[in-house]
């Protein structure tokens, strides 16, 4: 009688300790990953892209042989500091809301004479599209440490916010996913990746405040356009066109939600 009770207690304590160990392991794994990310942050290869972007910004290029130093990113021609944390926003000259990458291409066309449509069709990481990514990294880095403060004064800015919100929750595709499936709750996680809740301010340096980022898994620099493209790909949706209204609207939605969050761009991701 005593033996079986003792045995049951042993089994129970063994099961409990395994449960505790598993929970402990999860906690330790999270700490370990945090330590790994911290070690990587010192010496982010994104800096190589930032350097390239700075060179491209200042270099006379394109058919018109002009630099981008007069490009207006929303705070006046040539003003880079603080521009990233106010994008996407409405631009008078194009009559539309634009994000950083589409605005850079507008400048490359109007100032330097490049063909915007051609650049938009170029795959990520190639040709002039790779230059856009480097430029975006350079411009965004100039706002590092600043807090997001997207304007919502113009009618189109408000409309794009509402469009972005609808798109965020719109379920579709073969898995019936929406952005909200992964990013609509607190405390979500895919394997070891924490999923920020993008329906509100997810905190400093998280979500919208963390792209462009350098991804160590493929040694690539990803801007928000590529990040959104890949989100759609992962949901098994058709991938959005570069710079489409859908991508910009989502940027407005996330960016407005991230108001006062601190940008840590350029970030480093797995």
């Amino acid at each position, binding site marked *: 009688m005593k033996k079986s009770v003792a045995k049951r207690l042993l089994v129970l304590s063994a099961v409990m300790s395994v449960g505790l160990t598993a929970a402990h392991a999860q906690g330790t794994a999270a700490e370990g990953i945090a330590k790994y990310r911290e070690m990587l942050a010192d*010496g982010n*290869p994104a800096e190589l892209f930032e350097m*390239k972007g700075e060179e491209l910004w200042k270099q006379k290029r394109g058919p018109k042989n002009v630099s981008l130093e007069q490009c207006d990113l929303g705070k006046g021609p040539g003003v880079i500091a603080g521009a990233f944390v106010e994008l996407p926003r409405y631009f008078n000259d194009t009559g539309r809301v634009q994000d950083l990458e589409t605005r850079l291409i507008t400048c490359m066309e109007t100032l330097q004479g490049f063909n915007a449509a051609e650049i938009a069709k170029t795959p990520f990481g190639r040709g002039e599209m790779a230059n856009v990514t480097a430029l975006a990294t350079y411009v965004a880095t100039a706002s590092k440490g600043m807090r997001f403060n997207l304007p919502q004064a113009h009618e189109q800015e408000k409309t794009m916010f509402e469009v972005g919100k609808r798109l965020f929750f719109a379920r579709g595709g073969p898995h019936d996913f929406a952005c909200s499936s992964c990013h609509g709750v607190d405390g979500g996680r895919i394997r070891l990746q924490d999923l920020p809740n993008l329906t509100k301010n997810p905190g400093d340096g998280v979500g919208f405040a963390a792209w462009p980022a350098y991804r160590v898994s493929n040694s690539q620099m990803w801007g928000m356009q590529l990040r959104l493209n890949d989100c759609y790909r992962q949901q098994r949706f058709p991938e959005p066109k570069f710079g489409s209204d859908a991508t910009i609207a989502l940027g407005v939605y996330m960016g407005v939600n991230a108001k006062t969050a601190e940008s840590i761009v350029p970030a480093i991701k797995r």
Partner: protein
Amino acid sequence: MADPMRIRAALAGDETTVRVLMSHPMEAGTRKDAAGATIPAHYIQDVEATSNGKTVLKAMFSGAVSQNPFLSFKFKGAAKGDKVVVKWVDNKGDTRTDEAAIA
């Protein structure tokens, strides 16, 4: 010429900490592409850092060093404003030299 390195050198007390980011694919020569062909080895093999004409570090890298290599080291005996020069040579004989002033 290969893409530039980012070199940061900072003096604290009597120690200068140097952080270098090199732009390089660091292809080990063991990966295969989509068609099944081996991607040829292309990686930095030797790195040398000098300051005031004196070698402060020599490194031998293999293809196991990550793409866009990072290197950090510390040395004594330099002053603010001194230059740190870093040079790398890869297995194809390509080379790159960059320098930074100690802040």
